[in-house]
């Protein structure tokens, strides 16, 4: 697991996520799609209605070349 605070460009260890029913359903659908189709190193976005809050989710493995350098570093060093 890796978590990036995108507002501050900082790797963090813990995050509390609060979702509405609709947002949780969307995240479930996205994860199901990626898991069932064995999609790794892609991404999906979950937003609130006004796009003020956003989660970007990816299922990653060791084939990280599709990510940008910031995310590669996050995966490799957790920083």
């Amino acid at each position: 697991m890796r978590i990036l605070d995108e507002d501050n460009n900082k790797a963090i260890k813990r995050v509390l996520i609060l979702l509405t029913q609709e947002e949780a359903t969307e995240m479930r659908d996205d994860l199901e799609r990626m898991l069932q189709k064995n999609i790794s190193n892609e991404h999906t976005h979950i937003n609130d209605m006004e796009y003020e809050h956003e989660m970007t989710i990816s299922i990653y493995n060791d084939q990280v070349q599709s990510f940008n350098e910031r995310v590669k570093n996050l995966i490799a060093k957790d920083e």
Partner: protein
Amino acid sequence: MGINPNSANYDQLVKKQIKQDRDQISFGMGMVLGPEEGLSNIISKGADEAAASANKIQNIVTNVKGWLGDKARMIKNAYDDTVIISEDGTRRVRFDINNPSPHENPHGHVEELINGKWEKSGPLYPTDVPNE
């Protein structure tokens, strides 16, 4: 022409239509996001080239508007990237150009809520842009 709800293979026809719509928009997004026809490059082009590009983009806008409906709303996210959402909130097109994170290259997303489940394209890249 609409799909007859009484057709025996109505579900298949709807799915086929959705795929066609998405392919059309994805193609359009490819042109918008592509390095040769990208919006930022139009600024530096000559008048003729800019006009040709503008025509192509107008066609894309028409396609996107057709899929999302005339009353779609546009949102700019924190990175000033554009998201367009249909009036009922069940169709969305998103262009991640300024902030393509977690990847390197600009891409788009086409998303649709079908029978209560979100069907998403995943990142869509122009054909001449590496998928990264």
